[in-house]
């Protein structure tokens, strides 16, 4: 009981709250995800001059010196170089100083046991380098100590400026929400999502009903066969299922071959009709779930009722319309609402099939866009904060729709008090 509640809290309740927290930050792969980070980089040095920091100080900040002192030698011993090389460095280079990495490498080349790989030379240079540039400091105090260690003196006012200019960490912001409302893509993606959910749902529920009813009116051997076939997409891993669709629609795949025999030029049909296939691919998987639920719902209808209708001369179509469908209102409602939610939030099949393409945002849905923004894109900068903002919208829908189910499906009965106490 306790472990279960801890795990559920840790990986479920906290993530929901953290999604909100992250959505109010500028977190991205550029800023990192941990707190303050002070780094003097080449870019910040240019920036510093523009902000009126004393040129002499800027030069000092960019200064690099390679010192073979005790600290540097200690680090060299930890690299894991040949002991002969370490010994030679200790004998020949101890106490030396180099103004550039080039000079250092030249000196290393003179050694008898000189390091052969670039990796090793770089590791030596890294061990003996003394500079403030590209060093990462997590606190202001550490940054100050770093400056002092490199012999750089700054007054408090300048230090304050430096802290501000070198801090690359994320900040709190509400800009994500402003951007979401202002962006042109928001509407495009919203429209895509609505289109995708509506038509996939139509396909899903429609096909599930057709399958469940058709197999109900078939000899049991046939119905078993068709149900088994339709369960295959659900059982097989998504990666394989989508790969097979890609082959099926590929320009040398089955569709092109089949249509080719009718005189149609081979095409990459997936690229020609991306939405059609996104809906079909998702629909085939979704239909199998509806099929199982609906099939058992049809079987639950008392046989007497159907027999009575048959005796009274009702055709199968009339039985379906007048008796079966009205009795199945609840399962249909359940499947529809359940799948609305999962279609809104899942992006696995679209990611594998079109990845939002072909072209720009053609089949990009909301959930897929959140994933692209925060976790995988071509622009290099992963915008965690903005991605979380997109996810907040989904979380909101998720919670609202889940609460709705609980109301529809009689929550009180499900949490009834146990009979034995303690």
């Amino acid at each position, binding site marked *: 009981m306790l472990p279960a509640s801890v795990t559920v809290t840790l990986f479920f309740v906290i993530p929901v709250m953290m999604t909100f927290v992250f959505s109010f930050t500028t977190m991205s792969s550029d800023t990192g995800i941990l707190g303050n980070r002070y780094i003097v980089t080449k870019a910040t040095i240019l920036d510093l001059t523009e902000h009126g920091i004393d040129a002499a100080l800027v030069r000092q900040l960019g200064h690099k010196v390679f010192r073979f002192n005790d600290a540097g030698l200690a680090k060299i011993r930890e690299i894991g170089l040949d002991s002969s090389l370490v010994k030679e460095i200790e004998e020949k280079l101890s106490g030396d100083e180099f103004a550039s990495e080039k000079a250092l490498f030249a000196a290393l080349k003179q050694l008898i046991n000189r390091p052969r790989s670039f990796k090793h030379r770089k590791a030596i240079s890294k061990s003996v380098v003394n500079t403030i540039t590209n060093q990462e400091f997590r606190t202001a105090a550490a940054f100050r100590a770093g400056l002092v260690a490199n012999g750089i003196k700054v007054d408090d006012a300048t230090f304050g400026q430096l802290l501000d200019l070198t801090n690359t960490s994320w900040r709190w912001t509400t800009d994500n929400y402003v951007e979401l409302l202002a962006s042109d893509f928001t509407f495009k993606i919203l429209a895509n999502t609505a289109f995708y959910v509506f038509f996939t749902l139509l396909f899903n529920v429609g096909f599930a009903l057709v399958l469940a009813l058709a197999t109900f009116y078939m000899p049991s051997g046939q119905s078993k066969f068709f149900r088994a076939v339709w369960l295959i997409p659900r059982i097989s*891993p998504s990666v394989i299922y989508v790969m097979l669709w890609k082959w099926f629609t590929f320009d040398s795949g089955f569709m092109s071959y089949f249509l080719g025999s009718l005189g149609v030029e081979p095409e990459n049909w997936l690229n020609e009709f991306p939405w059609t296939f996104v809906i079909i691919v998702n629909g085939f998987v979704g239909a199998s779930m509806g099929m199982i639920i609906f099939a058992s719902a049809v079987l639950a209808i008392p046989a007497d009722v159907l027999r009575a209708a048959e005796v009274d001369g009702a055709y199968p179509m009339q039985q379906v319309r007048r008796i079966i469908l009205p009795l199945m209102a609840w399962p249909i409602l359940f499947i529809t609402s359940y799948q609305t939610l999962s279609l809104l939030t899942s992006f696995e099949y679209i990611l594998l099939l079109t990845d939002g393409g072909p072209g720009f945002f053609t089949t990009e849905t909301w959930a897929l866009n959140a994933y692209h923004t925060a976790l995988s894109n071509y622009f290099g900068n992963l915008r965690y904060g903005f991605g979380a903002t997109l*996810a907040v919208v989904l979380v909101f829908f998720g919670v609202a729709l889940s609460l709705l189910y609980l109301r529809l499906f009689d929550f009180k009965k499900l949490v009834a008090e146990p009979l034995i106490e303690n």
Partner: protein
Amino acid sequence: MDDRKTNWPLTLFLLIVSAPILIMYVWLFIDSVSEINIESIWPEKFTLRNWRFLTEEIPGHGSVWTATLNTTIFATSVVAIVVVLSSTAGYALSRLKFPFRAPFLGIVLLLHSFPSVTLIISIFLMLRMIGLYDTLVGVILVKAALELPFGIWIMKGFYDTVPWEIEMAGLQDGASRFQVWYKLVLPQIMPGVAALAIFSFMAGWSEFVLPLILAPSSDTRLLSVYLAGLIIDDYLSDFGLFKAVGLFYVVPVMIFYLFTQDKLMNIYGGGTKG
């Protein structure tokens, strides 16, 4: 209904709409062992070249065996965690009275219907912060946690169908609550435990999005991510290879399903009979 006669138009219609599935999976077998002919979909010649990934690494993609081992560890660990935690928590929720029971059950129910991918961004960031990013342990914990609400919910359903009399009798005879659970109640719901274990194993074996995002590197990669990596590799466009790897990946789960489908269907039924 056994008295149904074959309705040919109906059967034909179903055959046509089911054709893509049948064709795709039949050609999964065919193409994995044949040389692909661009002009036609009919196989030219039998070959085992597509199966070369078993003995050699596909350049840039690492070993399939690492991925297979990872997938096995992943799926079995998820099963172990989900089964142990859900069968205990389900019992507690079904039979014990403790503070915050109703709110907890409410949260579990809410989460059960709540799609977990929504949380993937904050889970990713949290794993980065606590240092479990790109580890098998991290992704196992996340997957198990996301499966738990479903597991607890299903197990509670099974416990609810066990008659109270069994436990009352056990307690009367002086057994402790734990003994009652372990010796009397648990055997009653074994079909449920089996169904949940099978379900979690198949879910774990097939999982793609979580490992893709949370454990992408070649040491921690699962088979699903390995195969997806092959497919999107621009230097490979070899459906024969993809299908062979795909078959290698899907066959265990298909066989597993064939042998366990009767037990798995219990998950929709719920509980012992009588």
